[in-house]
């Protein structure tokens, strides 16, 4: 599909998307615009800055230093896209060059505890769902979150490769999809995968929260899940109740649906309709004479369903009662 095509184009570059915008842009909700914002030519500043890093790290980052050149060219070959000049990206690129000098001090990336940075990571989690906003907006938020903690950025940078390769699996066998770990978080591959998984689960949890009434007020996943489970159980119980009621009602009514089903295809088959409820028959007698059965079957059906969408049960009652006389025969 269209989106997967974009993915393919992106992964084919293997462009080192070190900019934080890469994170947002990978979220496909934005689609094309974010992609464009992600690959501005101004990135060249940040690109070269990172090349000043110690070669091992650079190699790690770039996944294959030889392809870095081709990456640039393929980048520009995508020039058909218009790249809005993004001042925020420029600022970030400049900051990267600062970090490159600090890099020696920070040395190896250790699995630093995330206790102190759990707060910004939470904020990140919150900003993440705001993917649908423009890249700029999210970038502003990220910068404000990050203002004091530049040291950790390089860690993020280094971990990006690991996360990239990890998420490449998750992204349907694309060769190289770049993702960025959050600042200040452990960059162990396991925890990265774990984090990715957690994000997925949280996204879906949000979906569920919207579905189940009264769930958005609740904080905490456990309670929300409780609520969801209760909802599912209540729905299932409702189905059971209604099926019991239908079972009690059903022996009285016997309706044949061949005609109804046939009308869905626009053709009317012979169908016999037998009904044993006098109550209904009286309802139907007047309309049966007036309504021609062929043309109105479909619109009647459709109309009654449209009304049902408005949760108007009575209309269906009338509708179903009126459906029957539209069939060919009525047998007692």
């Amino acid at each position, binding site marked *: 599909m269209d989106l997967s095509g974009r993915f393919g184009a992106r992964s084919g570059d293997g462009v080192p998307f070190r900019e934080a915008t890469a*994170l947002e842009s*990978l*979220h*496909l909700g934005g689609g094309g615009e974010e992609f464009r914002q992600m690959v501005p030519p101004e990135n060249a500043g940040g690109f070269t800055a990172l090349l000043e890093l110690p070669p091992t790290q650079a190699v790690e980052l770039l996944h294959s230093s030889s392809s870095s050149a081709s990456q640039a060219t393929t980048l520009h070959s995508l020039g058909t896209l218009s790249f809005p000049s993004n001042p925020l990206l420029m600022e970030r690129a400049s900051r990267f060059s600062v970090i490159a000098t600090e890099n020696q001090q920070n040395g190896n990336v250790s699995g630093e505890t995330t206790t102190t940075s759990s707060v910004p990571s939470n904020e990140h989690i919150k900003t*993440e769902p705001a*993917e649908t906003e423009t890249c700029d907006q999210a970038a502003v938020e990220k910068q404000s979150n990050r203002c004091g903690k530049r040291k950790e950025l390089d860690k993020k940078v280094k971990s990006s490769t690991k996360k990239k390769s990890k*998420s490449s699996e*998750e*992204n*349907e066998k694309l060769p190289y999809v770049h*993702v*960025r*770990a959050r600042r200040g978080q452990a960059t162990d591959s*396991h*925890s990265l*995968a*774990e*984090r*990715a*998984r957690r*994000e*997925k*689960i949280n996204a*879906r949890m949000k*979906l*569920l929260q919207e*579905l*189940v009434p009264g769930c958005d007020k609740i904080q905490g*996943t*456990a309670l929300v*899940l409780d609520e*969801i*489970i209760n*909802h*599912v*159980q209540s*729905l*299932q119980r409702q*189905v059971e109740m*209604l*099926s019991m009621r*239908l*079972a009690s*009602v*059903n022996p009285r*009514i*016997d309706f*044949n*649906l061949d005609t109804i*089903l046939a009308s*869905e295809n626009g053709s009317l088959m012979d169908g016999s309709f037998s009904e044993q409820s006098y109550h209904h028959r009286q309802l139907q007698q007047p309309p049966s004479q007036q309504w021609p059965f062929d043309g109105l079957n479909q619109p009647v059906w459709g109309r009654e*369903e449209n009304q*049902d*969408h408005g*949760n108007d*049960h*009575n209309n*269906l*009652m009338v509708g*179903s009662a009126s459906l029957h006389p539209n069939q060919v025969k009525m047998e007692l």
Partner: protein
Amino acid sequence: MASADKPINTDVPEKDVFTLHFLQSLSNLRRQNTFNSPEKTNDRVKKIKKAAYVSMARAAGGTNRLWSRALLRRAAKENSKVVRFPRRKKRVTCLRRRRSNRRDPVEEEEAERLRNLVPGGGGMETSKLMEETAHYIKCLSMQVKVMQCLVDGLAPK
């Protein structure tokens, strides 16, 4: 985000599709049984319930959804029929499941309960499970609406 998928799709067909399938199954039931004997009410209830679920599974996207597939398979097993589903690609999720060993105990307990509730939930990873649950909830509520309308229509007071 790291593992951004395409936007999660939990669309459910319109009510008339559900109604169609449900009425179809009901008419099939009618053809099969004699509904005269009152002793078999429970059986009838069960049959109707099963028909409701099966028709819901079919209406809601047939074999594209895991839960509907599990439902249909379960129903077919009871009827001792063989059900064949088109082969899906092997997902990479099974790999991931083995790797990520850090699970939130509270969440897993809830996930376990969900798995028991949602048909076919046993073989799914948690994120997939939640997606299926969302779709399942939508379909269930649609089915409830349909049945409610039917009951009201057939037994007006």
